[in-house]
């Protein structure tokens, strides 16, 4: 029964899963770049810069959605603060992008424009090292990771659960947004960071850089899906699901739910931050509105639409909602929020298992366990309803007879 980790990893996913992943990699790393660079614009297969960037952006959202599902779908903890971790990752990498502007800013000084505007003469201490790419990557992981760890430790230790947890994550995000809105905080106030020029010295607007960022986003998504697959099929994943279903029972058989929740929570936050770091150079801007309540709620909607507790569901949800969003915001911008609201209500009422659940229902695919159990169980004939404990009276009959 003991199999090496690599084998277990390979077998944690069916062959069709690997095949789908390989096709996805081919499309993202070969087909799209070729179509973008080599085909003439008139070709029906031409992929425009707009499309590459839009897809790259949605791939980042998909990563966030999977990260959200790891904590919501598999651990039963609804976070309304994932927008914060996403934004922090974006800001951490954005600092590096700001420094890469160098003296090409509007004031021609080697200091981000907003600092010159504030009449600051030098970088504040927390910007030290921000010109280093490696340091930027460290910050991308460490800042959201530490914040999530500390916040999670206290929240889970105090056994804060359910809607209370959702509310305090939302409050934390809101507080951070107010902080980032202030110019004195040192992150560009309400304008945030923008006008990026280079990454590692290379032009950020070039077609090659666009394709690299897109390819990296695809790679990150594949990595997160594989990691998620490993986690949810490992014993760790089974303990996590058990905590979701009956936490006190898990404690009783000797596990400490605190550390299990903390691990998946922190990991989820770090994955969001990585997505944020890839998102910012693609869209060219990061500002505090990324921390608004609506953003974090939207993440939950992607997951709900696609299907909680599945790994592919959140990816599908992120694509459906965001493609719809980019269509609506162009065609009927004023109706987008209504559409989103109706979508959420509709899914909650009619598709509790999201699109993936619907697919399974329609095509009678072997249904996941979760659905199996929640469906009403035909009462096995060997199991009458529990009898009330009044059998004690039976002793008198027997006792008297004996």
């Amino acid at each position, binding site marked *: 029964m003991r199999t090496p*980790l690599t084998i*277990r990893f390979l077998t944690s996913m069916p062959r069709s899963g690997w095949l789908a992943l390989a096709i996805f990699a081919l499309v993202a790393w070969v087909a799209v770049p070729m179509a973008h660079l080599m085909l003439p614009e008139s070709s029906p297969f031409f992929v425009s810069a707009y499309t590459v960037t839009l897809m790259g952006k949605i791939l980042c959202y998909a990563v966030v959605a999977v990260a959200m599902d790891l904590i919501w779908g598999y651990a039963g903890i609804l976070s309304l603060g994932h927008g914060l971790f996403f934004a922090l990752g974006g800001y951490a990498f954005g600092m590096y992008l700001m420094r890469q502007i160098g003296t090409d800013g509007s004031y021609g000084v080697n200091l981000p424009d907003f600092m010159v505007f504030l009449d600051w003469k030098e970088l504040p201490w927390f910007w030290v090292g921000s010109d280093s790419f490696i340091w930027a990557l460290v910050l991308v992981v460490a800042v959201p990771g530490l914040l999530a760890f500390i916040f999670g430790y206290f929240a889970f230790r105090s056994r804060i659960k359910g809607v209370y947890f959702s509310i305090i994550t939302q409050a934390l995000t809101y507080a951070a947004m107010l902080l980032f809105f202030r110019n004195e905080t040192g992150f560009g106030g309400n304008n945030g960071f923008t006008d990026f020029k280079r990454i590692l010295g290379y032009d950020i607007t070039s077609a090659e850089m666009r394709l690299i960022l897109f390819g990296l986003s695809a790679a990150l998504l594949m990595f997160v899906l594989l990691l998620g697959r490993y986690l949810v099929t490992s014993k760790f994943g*089974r303990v996590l*699901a058990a905590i979701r279903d009956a936490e006190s029972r898990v404690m009783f058989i000797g596990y*400490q739910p605190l550390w299990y929740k903390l691990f998946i929570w922190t990991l989820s936050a770090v994955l969001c931050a990585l997505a944020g770091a890839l998102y910012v150079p693609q869209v060219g801007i990061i500002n505090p509105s990324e921390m608004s309540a609506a953003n974090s709620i939207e993440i939950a909607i992607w997951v709900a639409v696609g299907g909680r507790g599945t790994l592919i569901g959140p990816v599908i949800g992120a694509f459906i909602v965001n493609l719809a969003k980019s269509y609506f915001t162009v065609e009927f911008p004023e109706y987008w929020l209504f559409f989103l609201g109706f979508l959420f209500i509709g899914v909650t009422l009619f598709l509790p298992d999201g699109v993936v659940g619907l697919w399974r229902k329609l095509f009678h695919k072997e249904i996941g366990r979760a659905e199996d159990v929640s469906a009403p169980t035909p009462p096995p004939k060997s199991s009458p309803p529990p009898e009330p404990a*009044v059998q004690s009276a039976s002793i*008198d009959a027997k006792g008297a007879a004996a």
Partner: protein
Amino acid sequence: MSTVLDPQAVRPEGLNAPENWEGPASDGHVVKAGELDLSHKVILYLDDISVSFDGFKALNKLNLAIDVGELRCIIGPNGAGKTTMMDVITGKTRPDSGKAFFGQTIDLTRMTEPEIAHAGIGRKFQKPTIFEHHTAFENLELAMKMDKRVWKSLFAALSDDEYDRVSSVLKQIRLDHEAERPAGLLSHGQKQWLEIGMLLMQEPRLLLLDEPVAGMTDDETERTAELFVSLAGKHSLVVVEHDMSFVEALGGMVTVLHEGSVLAEGDLATVQNDQRVIEVYLGR
């Protein structure tokens, strides 16, 4: 085993200094504090336990001693204090007075619930609390006695031994053909067995079972009795049950609880003929 132990005889320094008490000097037996010491063949010893809820005495100077490997039934009318007694043993309820010892040295009244579970006392609740979305196999795997920290779980793989242990318990609880089914789909009786299996995976020395056959069919009840009888010897069992035919099938010693203390003790036929017992049951 109906002699009532005199605590002073067993524990020369008195009951208040169990941690560093190292067993009677006479038999040269040395036990580390906190380790289960069964040198006197007694696994559980309750001495004058009293518990009251808002002045109502749920347990009233209860005395009970269970031998190693014994299968003991506790019966008594509703509200007699049977469940409360189990709550005291597992640390869920603290007694107002009295002593509870696991083996010779482990003072249960000073330990938390997880500590007591870890020390080797497994409890089955009246209502089964299995993990419904996990398969029967996975339920047992989760319950297995092993390192339960996050890091271990991330890379855990069952060894052949561990796999065999899960399989043998599955067989014991007659679920070897249902191993891959989600536990939520099992019948009521099977769920109860699964929970007992989860207890067994933790390798407890003492098993406490509160109304284990409530709601089971006659056939399931009969099989449960067989299971318990097969477990006795290797484990010690305390079974609370109202179903007299089940108690009869178990065949062990019976203790009758009434108003929080022991009313009678002996084999089933003896207690059923006890005038006080008949009165208690008929007078209701």
